[in-house]
């Protein structure tokens, strides 16, 4: 698993639960260090150990931790760059949903060795979608649910999300867009404020 992903799990635990919790989790998972390098690639198995240790230490199921991680990645002030990058995907939440099909290409453009799951969107009537997620780390669908929920807030859309479970390595998420302009959302300008 790419260091960027491991590192985001680390930052999530640190920023939400504190440094002590992270150090305990790092020690319990016996990864042999207490901080991931974001630009190195690690064995997938390390990620599984960290997540299992996190579930045990934090007393929450892995699925909930993954969903919270997704929300954190988009909405926490310490990681604003990701929500900005995702918003380049489109002007409205629906455009953004469709842009998820390009996520592998977008990730590869930024970091060639970063492997993202393959996402495909099926549109149904009345603003209903199913997002299929394959070739990903098991449970990645839960991260997506958390991210989509936070992105809907960003766009000011009113959305119902449900992880439909997965079979044979494909996870499905139901996305119901009730209203695209439910709230103001946050304004996305192409130029960075700090540039």
């Amino acid at each position, binding site marked *: 698993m790419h260091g*960027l992903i491991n590192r985001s799990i680390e930052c999530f635990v640190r920023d939400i639960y504190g440094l002590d919790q992270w150090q305990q989790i790092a020690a319990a998972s016996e990864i042999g260090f207490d901080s991931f*390098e*974001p*630009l190195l690639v690690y064995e997938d198995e390390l990620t599984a150990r960290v997540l299992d240790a996190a579930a045990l230490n934090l007393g929450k199921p892995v699925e909930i931790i993954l969903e919270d991680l997704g929300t954190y990645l988009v909405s926490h002030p310490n990681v604003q*760059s990701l929500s*900005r*990058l995702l918003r*380049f995907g*489109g*002007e409205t939440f629906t455009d953004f949903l469709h842009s998820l099909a390009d996520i592998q290409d*977008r990730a590869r*453009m*930024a*970091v060639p060795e970063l492997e993202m799951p393959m996402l495909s969107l099926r549109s149904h009537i009345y603003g209903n979608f199913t997002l299929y997620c394959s070739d990903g780390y098991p449970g990645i669908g839960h991260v997506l649910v958390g991210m989509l929920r936070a992105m809907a807030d960003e766009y000011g859309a009113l959305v119902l999300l449900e992880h439909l479970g997965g079979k044979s390595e494909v996870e499905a998420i139901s996305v119901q867009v009730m209203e695209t302009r439910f709230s103001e959302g946050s*304004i*996305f*300008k*192409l*130029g*960075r404020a700090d*540039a």
Partner: protein
Amino acid sequence: MHNRPAENHVSSLSVRALDQLMPMHLIISATGHIVRAGPTLAKMMPEIQFSGARLLEIFELQNPPTADSMTDLYAVAGQALRLRFRRSPNTQLKGIIVELPETNGLLLNLSFGISVIEAVQKFNLTISDFAPTELVVEMLYLVEAKSAVMNESRNLNLRLQGARIAAEEQAFTDTLTGLKNRRALEHILGVAAAQHRPFALMQIDLDFFKDVNDTMGHAAGDHVLQHVSSTLVQATRSDDTVARIGGDEFVLVIDNQVDKRALNDLGLRIIRRLEEPVFFKGDPCEISASIGVSFSSDYSCVDPSEMLADADAALYDSKNKGRAQVTLATPYVATRRAANG
């Protein structure tokens, strides 16, 4: 002159369609005045009243540089143009002009070249200010993603640099000679003292080394130091320690040997070998050495720094007695120091 076969023309576009396809377009009349401007241009420069103004009053055509009349503008139709706003912030633009046969006017479509990164910031532009077919948004995504990655990469380099410096500080080896350094020596002496093993400490200071350095240069000095190192290693057993603790100061830890006569002989043997001239680029470098030795068996409680100080005091006795000598730290010196300390 504009009567062209019908199949070469498509039906005229609505202004709404023009705005969607080319949000940075300008329609120019046959007199060279702007008839309308696309919505993104209007948003960028709200203080400019585009319609009715002369095109070349608002824009400077930089390449090709000749245009100052409507005839010139017809002449550059179809070419890649470089323009810029005459008004601050003088944003650079790329453009292309095509003729509008029905009105004898022109259509100028503009785009940011590489200035887009600055422009989106300056003019607060959003995704909807660009045609969906333009690659501007993808380009900006890429710039931002790459700068985030570069930032991580810079951080990684800083951490690696820090780790390298820390590793160097923790190193036990003298880089010039490959001998142990002072840090290693302290570690070894600490272990030897803790294990109550008998050992002798021989402190060696080169004589006349400064002359070699001063008259023959640092390269010659380094050559001599390397030669001294190999001499010391050859003169000792593999269990002994040879350390360089300063410019021309060396310390030997002779393990399991506290026989004074044997150590005196070893010291003299080392001095004799060091006095054999070393050649650097054909010239002889002549040095000698002064030596002081202390013995762990002279102390009831072995303190490495005390032993080093006593060996050093004995070494200075050797220097004072005219150099190239071995002085053994006497139990008397050791006891006196203990009494004073």
